[in-house]
């Protein structure tokens, strides 16, 4: 009899365990950056977060293949181009949320509410102070001017960050003018394009190039370890339309089994509690205007950012890629 009682207790405990709510996340952001957040969320709410990481392309292929039977409730990835693509493939669901609309500025989320930015990175200029004077720098377009011949460094056009930058330029200036600018960039290159931003920034500091374009957090990671690093940040296009920004963000999957849980988690991620953990860990800017950035990130000063809606980055991405191919930007 006693044993029977114990069994009942054990079974009811198991049932209790089985009922702990879970949200399942497919993430193209690496685990180190998001795990601390989810741990904090679990501690606060008791909701368990299961994560599966992979590159964004395979994750989308996976969601497509799984169809209605996907275990995923939420997709997290970097770059609006990727988020737009997931939405375009019909993998995401429209979410209506007052909280998200309040916490995320309009140009950093999908106007249909299928995805929301959660952190902001600016893609701006960096220069070597021994070779280039800040007052000579102005805009991205200006880097196509022959006066920068042999001084410019760029990362490969294969990276989505550059594709989004060029896509946003197409949105603003049209295809013909953008192609002229990109051809000008290629003509000004000091050396072959770099495989990543870190290498590019190091080349600027070493004097291989005078100026280049990179994401702020790569610079942050370097100066965090080496405050004497010989490169400076320059906020591009401040007198015109503002610096090119992009996001990392998330959306609820179309066939989410726990839609409400995923929305709650997303709202929490956009709240002041989570924004600092989320953005500071990777030295990015919080998406929520009410939240202050990390000390190092704030030290770069305020800047005006371009407010064209991020969806353009996705819509015009393949056009941008073809344009860069034509211009010989590898």
């Amino acid at each position, binding site marked *: 009899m006693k044993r029977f009682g114990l069994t009942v207790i054990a079974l009811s405990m198991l049932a209790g365990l089985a009922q702990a709510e879970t949200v399942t996340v497919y993430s193209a952001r690496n685990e180190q950056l998001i795990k601390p957040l989810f741990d904090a969320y679990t501690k606060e709410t008791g909701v368990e977060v299961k994560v599966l990481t992979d590159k964004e392309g395979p994750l989308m292929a996976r969601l497509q293949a799984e169809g209605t039977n996907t275990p995923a409730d939420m997709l997290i990835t970097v770059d609006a181009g990727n988020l737009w693509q997931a939405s375009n493939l019909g993998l995401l669901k429209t979410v209506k949320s007052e909280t998200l609309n309040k916490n995320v500025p309009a140009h950093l989320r999908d106007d249909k509410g299928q995805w929301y930015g959660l952190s902001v990175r600016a893609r701006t200029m960096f220069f070597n102070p021994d070779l280039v004077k800040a007052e000579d720098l102005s805009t991205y377009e200006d880097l196509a001017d022959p006066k920068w011949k042999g001084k410019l460094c760029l990362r490969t056009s294969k990276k989505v960050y550059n594709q989004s930058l060029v896509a946003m330029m197409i949105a603003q200036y049209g295809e013909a003018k953008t192609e002229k600018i990109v051809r000008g960039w290629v003509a000004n290159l000091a050396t072959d394009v770099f495989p990543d931003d870190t290498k590019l920034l190091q080349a600027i500091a070493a004097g291989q190039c005078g100026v280049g374009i990179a994401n702020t957090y790569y610079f942050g990671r370097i100066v965090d370890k080496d405050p004497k690093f010989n490169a400076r940040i320059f906020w591009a296009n401040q007198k015109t339309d503002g610096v090119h920004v992009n996001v990392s963000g998330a959306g609820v999957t179309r066939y989410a089994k726990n839609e409400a849980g995923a929305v709650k988690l997303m709202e929490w991620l956009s709240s002041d509690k989570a924004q600092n953990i989320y953005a500071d860990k990777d030295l990015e800017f919080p998406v929520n205007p009410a939240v202050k950035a990390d000390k190092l990130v704030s030290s770069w000063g305020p800047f005006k950012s371009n407010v064209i809606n991020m969806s353009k980055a996705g819509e015009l991405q*393949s056009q941008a890629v073809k344009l860069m191919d034509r211009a010989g930007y590898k």
Partner: protein
Amino acid sequence: MRFLSPRGAILLTPIALLTIIPLFVVIASFLHPEPEIWQHLFEFVLPNVLKNTGILLLGVSFGVLLLGVPLAWLTAVCQFPGRRFFAWALMLPLAMPAYVLAFVMVGFLDFTGPVQTLLREWTGSSAWFPRIRSTGGVILVMSLAFYPYVYLLARNAFLTQGKRALEAAQMLGMSRPRAFWKVALPMARPWLIGGMTLALMETLADFGTVSIFNFDTFTTAIYKSWFSLFNLTAASQLASLLVVLVVMILGVERWARGARRYHGRIVAAERIVLTQSQGLWAAAACSLVLAIAFIIPMVQLIVWTTQVWRVDFDARYPGFILRSVGISLLAGLIVTGFALLLVYIQRRYPARITSILVRLATVGYAVPGTVLAVGVFIPIAWLDNQLLPIAHVLGFETFQILKGSVAVMLLALAARFMAVGFQPIDGAMQRISFNQEDAARTLGVSDRGLLWRLHIPLLRGGVFTAVLMVFVDVMKEMPITLMTRPFGWDTLAVRVFEMTSEGMWESAALPSLLIVLAGLLPVILLVRKSEGQ
């Protein structure tokens, strides 16, 4: 050669299907023409890609032979100071992922690296220094990364050749170098070609290394179509072309091997003792290759690891290591088992259809991992979607049955690495003469008994090499592991992906280092075994 051998085909089909189904999923993409993208690819992407891929294949074939064959000859047949050490040490680069070597080499030799920085400090300019990020640089790195395939197989060949053939040649008045060119090398041909084929397939499928060099190949064009132009269909179509290319390479391989039959017995032979100066040169050459391909990247990995391990190393690591080793070992055994069957059936039921099926079963190695991963995942997800309603009726609350199971992951890995297990065993099988089989038969061994009593004992060296090479390759493999692993089933390679996915290269040092270390163990075992022969 007959075309059809029903029994052979029936036995082979299930194994070949492992690769054929994912490839079929990829090739089915041709049902949806994408004229607009293709026009763009033809005009602006493919000319460069085809040229680059061609140059790379030629350069790497030359490079791996140039490194692999002489080193194998020196350590297998000659006697010089340090030979025993180099014999196993020269296999170590097998455990070093190519993209790690590439990253370290570029970091070392580029404008911002220590070498050119020192040059600038001493002489004021490093402008004359050769550019590492160039076609030559890619070929160099890949040759250093992939020569162990040729080295391992060639060494096997030279060891089992015995000195008799050489002695006979010399008795007939040939000089030693001539005997090497005329006798030893032709006798080792199936191995050399086998090793080279593996290196070329690996080259075709590579993405990590060429990205670091920003060198456009077929693989980068596939990824561009998929991730940048958002067109998985065009990407699959490009991948299908790549498969065609590989099938052609494998055809050339068959032809290059020739129709000759090889056989030989392992004879413990006297080694060729090198003179003192020759011996020093030999040791210097071995040391140089070892230093560049293994020691320098290893030191760099250790330096980075000491910077990050305090933060990164946590209680989960033993789990990563166990899972990596476990899955690699299992995959090694499964692939080797399949490969043995392939080789045996090819021997027992020679027919055109069997050899076509065998080719197909080994083609997965040259398909870029991510593409094959999708090809594997789509049919599995489809099957799951068929089975789930039944499971739900039975009251199981689940959304995955097959997908996310370790068994499926193993089969997917087997589809990818079949070639790696097949080559060494196939090479060893060609060494078993039909006379030996006939002799065994006259002694009353049944057909089935042949496999157990004659083939397997004689194939031991090949089998061991196969298990080792698959083990090391699976340790390093990323895309299939990422796509097919169960939730939370992270391995060392997954950790490497996590760290490198956002450009944190230095943080990837710890899992990379552990991958290399875990790969060392079987290498050392293998060598002790081959030395013991």
